[in-house]
């Protein structure tokens, strides 16, 4: 991280005043509160509300989910075929109560499954991720140089990936002969958090129009509620080879989960740290930001871990079937405290005013490795302030699993509160979207 932040600070201190942009004094752009110039993102942002302009509290929630293969109509079709109607989504009581999730007729046919797998793009496997959060924030500025906020929220992450080397076995047939589980995995973590974040504001530095430095530091107390993970663990020996003469399988899968929601505070919670560095040139409307968040690990108590390995070398399909039938009985189960690394977020953002009413934001979120893997994502957003307090937002999302995505939203930003609503669509619009997201935020100032 230092290799990113130090040059950024040095640049801020030694740089001459940036050439003025088209932000004349008195324009909408110039009159926008500095806090509102930090455009909200759909992605993980622990400093989301740390710069609100006045003391108050914020209620916010947001979800996003995406995959790289099935759009909403595909999913609707699968649900309709499997359960008779998507209306079951309105009444999931049976499912969560342990009842049958789809009491309707099952019209999902073998060809539907093959056709659905056929939608997985070549060379990429089947991937998806989802995250959601919701909570309360209380905070505000202490003078012009210090801000403090406290937050309480619930958060969930989930990712899955069926490696291309495995998916192509079903999608493309056995012509390739060599397959594997590869990096197939999936993980879900649900947690509650209590956090405190501060922002130190310095500037202008160097001159009256010099750069403003915002340094944010915070931490969150994380209490895991539920965790589940499945992944291929055999490593270099992972092989599925199917030829016309033989079948060779050497695969190992580790399945870990917390059998029940851990609602106790048993001292196994963990701390995550968040750091923000933001440079702004108010008169020019330019801002540069670097954020590193979710630094830390989480210890999850009483995780049941099963390891199942399938090793078959046969030229008899029946023997493979027998081996699969005995796969369950080979499970070795351990109950342990599991330490996992949180999905570390590293993001760089730049924003500038293009004219009196248009702010352009570009951010890059670096790929995340580990259990909650996510690809490189680039968000390009525009904020249109035809009316200063009612910004309209539109943008595109590049990278990610789903290809190009689109975002849009609006906000009402006042002196006594604010309201923001935004949505996004990945891979296409509406029915053809392979991912969607939404945010709702409401702030009330004292």
């Amino acid at each position, binding site marked *: 991280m230092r290799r990113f932040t130090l040059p950024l600070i040095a640049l801020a201190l030694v740089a001459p005043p940036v050439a003025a942009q088209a932000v004349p004094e008195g324009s909408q752009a110039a009159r926008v509160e500095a806090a509102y110039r930090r455009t909200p993102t759909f992605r993980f942002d622990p400093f989301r509300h740390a710069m609100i302009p006045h003391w108050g509290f914020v209620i916010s929630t947001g979800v996003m989910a995406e995959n790289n293969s099935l759009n909403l109509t595909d999913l*609707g079709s699968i649900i309709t075929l499997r359960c008779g109607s998507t209306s079951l*989504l*309105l009444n999931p009581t049976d499912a*969560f109560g342990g009842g049958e999730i789809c009491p309707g007729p099952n019209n999902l046919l073998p060809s539907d499954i093959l056709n659905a797998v056929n939608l997985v793009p070549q060379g990429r496997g089947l991937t998806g991720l989802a995250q959601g959060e919701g909570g309360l924030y209380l905070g505000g500025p202490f003078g012009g140089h210090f801000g403090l906020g406290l937050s309480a929220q619930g958060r969930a992450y989930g990712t899955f990936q069926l490696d291309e080397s495995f998916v192509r076995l079903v999608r493309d047939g056995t012509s390739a002969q060599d397959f594997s589980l590869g990096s197939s995995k999936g993980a879900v973590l649900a947690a509650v958090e209590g956090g405190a974040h501060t922002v130190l504001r310095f500037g202008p530095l160097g001159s009256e129009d010099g750069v403003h430095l915002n340094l944010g530091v915070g931490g969150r107390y994380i209490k895991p509620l539920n965790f589940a993970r499945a992944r291929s663990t055999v490593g270099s020996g992972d092989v599925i080879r199917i030829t016309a*003469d033989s079948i060779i399988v050497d695969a190992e899968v580790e399945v870990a989960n917390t059998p029940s929601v851990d609602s106790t505070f048993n001292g196994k919670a963990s701390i995550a740290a968040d750091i923000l560095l933001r440079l702004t040139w108010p008169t020019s409307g330019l801002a540069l930001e670097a954020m590193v968040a979710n630094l830390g690990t989480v210890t999850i108590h009483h995780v049941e871990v099963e390891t199942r390995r399938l090793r078959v070398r046969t030229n008899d399909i029946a023997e493979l079937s027998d081996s699969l039938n005995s796969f369950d009985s080979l499970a070795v189960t351990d109950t342990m405290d599991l330490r996992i690394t949180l999905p570390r977020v590293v993001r760089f953002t730049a924003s500038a005013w293009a004219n009196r009413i248009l702010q352009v934001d570009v951010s890059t979120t670096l790929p995340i490795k580990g259990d909650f893997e996510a690809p490189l994502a680039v968000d390009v957003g525009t904020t249109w302030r035809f009316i200063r307090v009612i910004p309209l937002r539109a943008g595109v999302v590049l990278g990610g699993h789903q290809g190009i995505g689109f975002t849009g939203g609006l906000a009402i930003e006042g002196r006594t509160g604010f309201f923001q609503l935004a949505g996004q669509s990945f891979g296409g619009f509406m029915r053809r979207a392979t991912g969607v997201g939404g945010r709702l935020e409401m702030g009330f100032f004292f």
Partner: protein
Amino acid sequence: MRDAWKVAGPLVPWLLMVGCEPATITEAHDQLARGPARQLEYAIPITQDTFTVAEFLGDDTTTTADGLLAVTIAPETLGVALGRRLRFDNLAFARLKVNVPAGIPPGNANVNANYAALSNEARILAVDTVVVDSGGITITTMNRLPGVLTYTLTLNGFRDSNNVVVSRSGLTVPAAPGNGTYTSASVTINLRRVKIIPNSVNVNVSGTVNLTTTTTATTADSSIIQSGTGTIVVERLSGTLNPAATPELVIAVEESDEIPASSVDFGQLEDPVKNSTLNDVRLNLTVRNTSGAAFVLSNFTLGVVKLTAGGAIPRDGSNRPAYETDGSGQITMPVTDPGLTTLTIGKGQTKSLSLQSARLIDRVVDLVLSNQRAAVVGEGTVRVGDGTQSTISRADSVSLAMGLTVALDFTVPPAGVAFDTVANGDGMGLDSTKANDLAGTLDSAAARLIVTNGMPFGVEVLVAAVPDTLRAGARADTVFSRSNRVEIGPAQLGPAAVDAQGRVTAAVLDTVNVRLTGQQARVFFGEYFGSGTRIRLLPATGNRGAIRTTDRVILSARAIVWVRVGGR
């Protein structure tokens, strides 16, 4: 938390999914098939295995000295109770004549005579001892004297079970008128448990004649005559038994033994065996003589008869067993010592013979596998004794234990041997909708069998399958006549190269391909299916096949399935 999710959770996905639900099921299927049209190929191994014929047979298998695979048939025993057949019929005592001269005045006159009663019975004189099981001798005494004859009969050489000489006293013969005519009286002596020493037999007649008048010349000659006849069943016979001297030692025998169906187990090869000709069946004969006398079996044969429904042996006009016949005549085989015309079993000896009996057993197997009752009949003559000191008793017998080793050496008709079989199988368990869908998705499927055939037979297979379970007793013809049948094949596999004896000299590598369309494969997608299979066993060169234990088929089966996806 859970309650909150119950309330809030549904709203989000519903909002996302609203408007995305297809209007019809068909539309939903089409939506998922929006991907590119492709035909996928899945090639997977089904099995690779080695099969031997032994796997298709029952448990009773063995290997012949020539290395051929063989089925053993449980030993059956023909027992001939020779001891019970020994008897002397129509034994006749020598005739005793006593002359009382003329002029003997009235009053008691003594009579005392001895004679070798068995002197005319060379057949019994040839043995040393005869112990009688049952039977007796009837002695008739004739008197032409004018006075009652009262006498004691003593059978020297006959001793009862207490070793006491057999005798009878107080025997009388009425007085004759004295004009030359006779009166007579008979006595029957039960000889049970009596031991006879033929060469010591001397009968004594001792008594008096109470003359009422003076004897005359008319009554002087052959005044008293005694003779005897009888039959004895032998309990034990000893001596230098010689059938030439004692014809009773030459015994005609006929015994039979039914071959039960349970003894003939060719496993799954019953039909091929029934419809082909066996070339090599070893009859392992164990002949046991329990007696102290040698036996010689003459003109002894084993033959096969088809028993009546009641289990009786059918007879010809001569009351002989009506043997099964083939192109060479009656199906019988001689039982002899190698190179001889007879079979000799010494005293107390057990002798083993191995006889080629393919012709005989081929018919037995055909009958039994056709649900007929079949029996092996042993018929011939047994000569007891060889002129040396010997003993035979009533309990003695000669038994022939027949162990059968049926080598799998067949001659198959040039057109092959056809047989049918039916079976029910489990399908993939899909309901009708899913089965139809899969049939539509499946473009075609092919099974490729790469076979290294080390068997002296080829095979042609034609399968008909129908999409439901066959009823008990259903025949293959029924399946092949069903309009909803799916026929697979015929697929033909060639035989290996063989020598003149039908033994494999070189395995043949052959490939069999069977291809089904998706609609043809539909029959296997339901819960169950029934199938009828027509199999034709094809002969190798010379139409003969001899299967060795080393003969095998190496099968490598793979399936290639072509599936259509996308394109809508």
